Each structure stands twice: as structure tokens, then as C-alpha cells.
């Protein structure tokens, strides 16, 4: 008698573009990210198809100064993409700027 092999999958979709994906079951907290044309090209999560939720970008709350961070195709610096679920939960993915260390020539020193 042959054994029955069960194979399950998860469908993923995006409310802002036509991106879809189908994967085997992932850990509960795993996310499928994509560069979303509907969210100014920013990296955003796909959500499980049929999930009652809303995905939104969050604009940076502080001055940009000389920070180097991701900006959308609209030129706006975004600090996070937030997924709000109908039951009150939310996921958050933050866009961390790169930490920098600059080595620059010092004009005063050079002119000595």
C-alpha cells in the first residue's frame, strides 16, 4: 500500500502591485519581501493571500540631515513599511540608514 504524501503551500500576494508568490510553509514570522512598484519601489512584504490587512509606508519622522537611507521613487525618505492586520496586530520592517565613517582631507592641515 502506497503512502500518501501531503504537500502544502502558501500563496502570497501584494495589494499594491501584481506580485504573487507560492512557497512551502515558512516559519510563522517569516516574510516574503519584494520591491513594490505600487509603494514607490520600496521593499515591502507580500502578505498571505486573503489576509485582511493593509500595508503602508511610513515617512521618516526626523530631519534627514546627511543620513544615507532608502528613498522612494518619489524622492521621499521612508523609515518603515507597516502591515496592520484587522485584529489589531501589526508587523513592522524598518529601513535602517547605513552608519558611516568618513575620512576626509583637512584643508587646514594640508595648507601647513
Amino acid at each position, binding site marked *: 500500500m502506497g503512502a500518501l504524501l501531503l504537500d502544502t503551500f502558501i500563496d502570497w500576494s501584494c495589494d499594491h502591485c501584481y506580485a504573487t508568490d507560492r512557497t512551502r510553509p515558512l516559519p510563522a*514570522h517569516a516574510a516574503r*519581501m519584494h520591491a513594490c512598484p505600487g509603494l514607490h519601489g520600496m521593499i515591502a512584504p507580500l502578505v498571505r493571500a486573503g489576509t485582511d490587512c493593509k500595508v503602508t509606508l511610513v515617512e521618516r*519622522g526626523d530631519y534627514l540631515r*546627511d543620513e544615507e537611507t532608502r528613498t522612494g521613487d518619489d524622492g521621499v525618505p521612508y*523609515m518603515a513599511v507597516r502591515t496592520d492586520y484587522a485584529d489589531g496586530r*501589526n508587523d513592522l520592517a524598518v*529601513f535602517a*540608514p547605513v*552608519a558611516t565613517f568618513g575620512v*576626509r582631507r583637512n584643508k587646514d592641515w594640508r595648507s601647513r
Partner: protein
Amino acid sequence: MAWTDSRVFTQAVLNPLTASAWSTTEPTTYGANGLSADSLAVTLWNNSITPDRDAAVASTGYNTGQWASGANEQKDATNWPAGGASNLLASKTYTLGTSVVALDAADRAGNGNLTLANVFGCLVHDDTITAGTVAKQGLSFNYFGGSQAVTGGTFTIIWDATGVLKFTT
């Protein structure tokens, strides 16, 4: 002052630069093969601290100076534990570009759903360093640009397209 920007600690650069240029006492080592061989951890912090890139080396480590673990570290017992030892940076890479050297890694998600209310930035430290002037020496702090909150969900850090940290000339 609180958070204002994202910087590499000066003391994190002092070692490799001065070790080659002068006989300055090295504040620490980054392991025989540099950062590629060490475990880099990330921890989350609120806005009650003032990160200082020029802090003395003894104050740049995790659980020292501004980075004293306690109420200011934003953590979850299971899914983003204090100290970051279970939140190590994976898939580290090194990039050499025009006038730029960068360290990158895979985006970091927590271990599961959690609730955090007041996250402003993260500390990236070398979790392999356990002795010397300071253990778990800090490499950089990255400012998220405002208050971040998550309720019963996942908290993921998406690093900049150019990396976690970089040196420019």
C-alpha cells in the same frame, strides 16, 4: 539630544587604522580574520539615550555607557532577547567600491512575534569580543528616523542598499 544620525564608532576604526600606521595600543582585536570571522549582534534601543560616535572605547560596548542594558534596551524575552546573541547578522559581505569600503549583511528579523513600543535605533556590536578594555565592542549605531512600534507582530531591520556600515574617503 537623543538620536540624530547613524555612525560608526571612532574607536571601532582606531584599531585597524592605527595598528598599521603607528604603535598605538589597540583597544581590541576583531579576531584573526576580522569582522568576517566574528559574530555581530544587533540590539534595539529607545530614545532615552544619546549615542556618541566619539565615546571612549570603554563606553562603546554593549551594556556600557549609553548602551547599558536595562529600561533603555527594547527587547522581548523570546523573540528579541537582550544582548542580541540570538540576533546575529547573517550572510555578512564586504564590498570594496570607489572610495568606499562597506560591510553588509542579510536583513534581520526577530525570532517571532513581539510587542515593542518605542524603538528608535539599533546598536551593532562584536559579540565575539569577550575581554580587553571592553567586551562586546560597538561597531555602529543606526538611527531609524523616528519612533517605531510593533504589536503582536514581527520587527524586521532592512539594511540600507549600501550596507550596515561603511567607510568613505
